[in-house]
C-alpha cells in the first residue's frame, strides 16, 4: 500500500497556487490525528495530466476566474468516473465573486448540477463528528467576502459517494498557515480536513 499523497490541482487559468501552506497543514493534521500513512509533502498535479488518477483526493482553489480546457474537463470527468474526489474551495469566500461564478459554471459543465449537501452527510462523520455540518471559518464570522455564514457545502454524488465537494467557506484562508503554529490555537481548525481525507480514502 502506498502512502496517501495530498495533491493540489494546477489548472491553466487563474491562480491555482494561491494557498501554498494548506497542503502541509492538512498533511500535518492527517498525521496528527490518524494512522493513515501519509507522504510528508504534497504534490502539484496538472488537471490535464493522466497522473491525476494516482491521487484519490485533489484540492483546487484560487481567486481568479476558472476556465477549464477541454483536456482538463475530460480528465476531471474520467477522474469522477473512477471514484476520485475533487475538493474545490473558493479562496474569495464570495458567492458574487468571479471564482465562484466561473468555477461553479465550469464544474456544472463537467460534473452536472451541483446540489447542497445535507449536514447529516457521512462526510461530517467520516472521522470527527461535526453535528452542525461544515465548521464555520473565521472569515465568515468576520463578515468578509459575501458577509454570509454558509450553512452547507455543495457537491455532486455518483453511486452514493461524493465526487465533487464545493466550499464557499474559504478553508484555503482558514488553513493557510504553517503547521507549527497549531500549538498557538485552542481548537485546531483543520480537523475537517481530516474528515475530507478520510472520506476520500474510505468511501
Amino acid at each position, binding site marked *: 500500500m502506498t502512502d496517501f499523497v495530498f495533491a493540489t490541482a*494546477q489548472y491553466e*487559468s487563474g491562480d491555482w*497556487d494561491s494557498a*501554498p*501552506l494548506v*497542503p*502541509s497543514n492538512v*498533511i*500535518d*493534521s492527517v*498525521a*496528527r*490525528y*490518524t*494512522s493513515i500513512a*501519509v507522504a*510528508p*509533502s*504534497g504534490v*502539484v498535479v496538472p488537471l490535464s495530466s493522466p497522473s491525476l488518477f494516482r491521487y484519490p483526493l485533489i484540492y483546487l482553489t484560487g*481567486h*481568479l*476566474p476558472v*476556465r477549464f*480546457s*477541454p483536456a482538463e474537463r475530460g480528465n476531471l470527468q474520467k477522474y469522477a468516473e473512477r*471514484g476520485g474526489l475533487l475538493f474545490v474551495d473558493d479562496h*474569495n469566500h464570495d458567492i458574487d*465573486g*468571479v471564482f465562484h461564478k*466561473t468555477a461553479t*459554471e465550469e464544474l456544472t459543465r463537467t460534473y452536472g448540477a451541483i446540489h447542497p449537501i445535507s449536514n447529516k452527510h*457521512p462526510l461530517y*462523520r*467520516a*472521522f*470527527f*463528528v461535526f453535528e452542525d455540518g461544515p465548521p464555520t471559518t473565521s472569515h465568515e464570522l468576520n463578515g468578509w467576502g459575501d458577509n454570509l455564514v454558509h450553512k452547507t457545502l455543495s457537491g455532486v454524488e455518483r*453511486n*452514493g*459517494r461524493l465526487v465533487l465537494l464545493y466550499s464557499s467557506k474559504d478553508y484555503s484562508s482558514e488553513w493557510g498557515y*504553517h*503547521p507549527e503554529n497549531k500549538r498557538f490555537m485552542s481548537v*485546531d481548525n483543520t*480537523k475537517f480536513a*481530516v474528515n475530507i481525507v*478520510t472520506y476520500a480514502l*474510505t*468511501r
Partner: protein
Amino acid sequence: MTAHTRLLQLRRFLQAALVARAIFVGASIALGLFAVARLGGAPSWSVVVAVLAGLAGAGAFLRPLRLLRSLSNVALWVEERTPSLRYALVTVADGVHSPALEAQALGTVWWSDVRTIVLRSLIKPAVVALVVAVIVLWNPFTGRFLLGSGAGAISGSGAAAQNVDPLAVVHVVVTPPAYAGKQPTRADDPTSVEALVGSAIALTGDGNAALLTATADSASRSIAPRGSGWSLSLTMPARPAIVKLHSSKGRDRLFVLAPIADAVPVVTLLLPAHDTIVRRATGRFALHAQVRDDIGLRDAAFELVISSGTGENFTFRSATIGHLVLSGTIESALDARISLDSLQLKPGDILQLRAVARDGNTVNGPGLGASETRSIRVARADEYDSVAVDAAPPPDTGGQVLSQRMLIMLTEALVKRQRTLSHAVLLEESLRIASDERKLRKRVGDVVFQRMGADPLSEEGAEDLASRGKLTPEDIVRLADSVTGTAGNVMDVEGDETPILAINKPLLEAFNAMWEAGRSLEVGEPAKALPPMRIALAAIEKARQAERIYLRGRPGTEIVDITKVRLTGKDKGVQSIREVRPPIDPVARRRSATFERVTNLMARDPEAAADSLLLLRVEALTDAPALAAALDDAAKALRKHDNSAIPLMWMRVRRVLGDPPVQRAGIAPWQGGLR
C-alpha cells in the same frame, strides 16, 4: 269542415299514435333486455336478441293499424266514446250524405275529446320507455354510464365500442414544442415515445374510455372519450417516465416517455486563437466565433471579464459586446472588434473573453453554450524575465552580449593556440574578448542598479563605470545613491551587511572578477584572465539560483515531520462508522440482477418481461443511454414475438451491461421465417 273530413284527420292521428306507442313499447323491451344482459355479463350476441325482442314487441303493438283501414271502424270508435252522436257519424262514414245527418254528426264537439284520450294513452308507454332508457344509460351499481355519454350512445357503433379492446391498437401523436418549428409525428403501438421535453403527446385508441385507467409515474391521469374511442393527453417530462394504461378487460400496456434534451449551443472561439501576454495594453484586435445549435439559436455575444489586483485584493469588471440576434438560425458566425486602449488595462490585469450563445428553448431553457476562454494578460515590469511576452523586434547585433561561459570557452581556445600565434594576432583576439567581457560587465552593473530602483546605466555611465575599474560594495551603493537619491534610506539598517548589499553580493563579486579578467585580456594575457572569469561565472550562477528561491507556479515545498507529529493530536476521531468502498458499481450490479430475472420471466410471460424491460429502460435513460437503447430494442422484439431478433437483442443488452454472453434453454429457439 265536414264530418267526413274530420274523420279522415282523426284516422291519421290514430295511426301516428299507434306507431308512437309501438316504438315506446319496442324500445322499452329492447333496452330492458339489454340492461339485464349487461348487468348479467351476457355475451355480445345478447344485444341482437334484445333488438329482435324489441322489434317483435313493437310489431305486436302495430297490429291495430289494420283496423284503421276502414273509416267506419274509426267512426264506431268515436261513437263508442260519444253516445250522443246516435250513429250519425257511422252513417256519414258509410257514404250517406244529408244536411240533417251532417248537422247531427257535427252537433257534438267530439274531435277534441278523442284526441285528448289518445294522447293520454301514450303517456304510460312513453314514461316506461324513458325509465328503461335511463336505467340502461346509467348503471346505479357502478355509477357510470353503460354506453358512454350522450343520447346517441345507444347505437350500433356504441354497442360495437363496448366490445372493442381499447388497448388493441394505441396511436401516438407527438407535437413538438412551438419553438422547435417541427411537424407532429405519428406512430402506432410504440414501446417508447421519444420527443423533445415539453412536447404534447396524445395517446388515442378505439373502445370504451370508461374501461381504461392511466397512470404516469404513479400519478393517475384522466382518459377522455373521443368519438367511439378514447384519448390521453400528456406532456413530455424532463425526466424519463413510464405511462401505464390499464384496461378493465385485464390488459395492461406500458409506454416509456423518453425525453430528448435540447442540446446547448456549441460555441467555438476562433479568434483570438490563443492566450497572450502583452507588454502594453494598446491596439485593436478582432474576435471571431462560430455558433451552432441543434434546433435554433436565439442570440449570441462576447463576454469580457477583467480582473485586476494581486494577492487577496482583486477587483473585477465585466462587459458584453457584439450582441447578435439570431432568430432561430441553426448556425452563424459572430464577429466583433475590441480596443485594448478603451479597456484601460494596467500591468497585471487579465482580460478573459469568451463567446456565449443562447438557444430558443422556451420550455426549460434557454440553453446557454460558451466557448473556451482566452486570456490576455498585461505583464508586470518585474516579471519580464520569467514570462513569455510578445515577440520583440530583433535585437541590435552590436548590443548582443556573449555569456560568461562562452567568453571562458573563447579564452581557453585562445590559450591553446597562443604558442602558434604572433603577439600582434594574440593581442587582437584577446582585445576582442576583452570588449565582450566589458559589455557583459556593463550588463551586470545594470542589473544591480535596477534593483536599487534606478534606470540602467547610460552609455556614459557604463563607460564611466568601466573606467572606474574594480569597485568596492560601497562604491556601487554610492553610485546607486547618486543616481536614485533614495538608496540612503534602504541602507539605514544595522549590522555588517545591508540587505541591498547582501542580495547583490554575488553580482558585485562577478563585477569585480570581470574587471580583473578584462585587465589581463587587454594586455594580451588570456591565461591570467581565466581564473577570474571562472570566479565571475560561479558568482553569476550563485546569484541566479539565489534569486529563484520562489517563482510563481512553483511554491516552496514544506516538509512535514510525520514522525514527530504522528498521533500527537488531543482530539480523537470516530473510526467505527467508516465503511469499505464497494468493489464494483452497485447500480450496474443491480441492473444485471434485474435483467437476469427478466430473462427467467420471459419464457413464462413475455408481456410481463417486456414491461419489465421498459421499466429498466426508464431508469437507464438518465445515465446509461446505450443500455436504454438496447433494452428498447429487446422489448420491441419481445412484443412482436420476433424469435429471430430476441437472442440478438439479449446478447446486445448483456454486452452493454458488461456481462458475458450466456446461452439459456429458456430462450425460444429459432422457428424460421421473418415476421
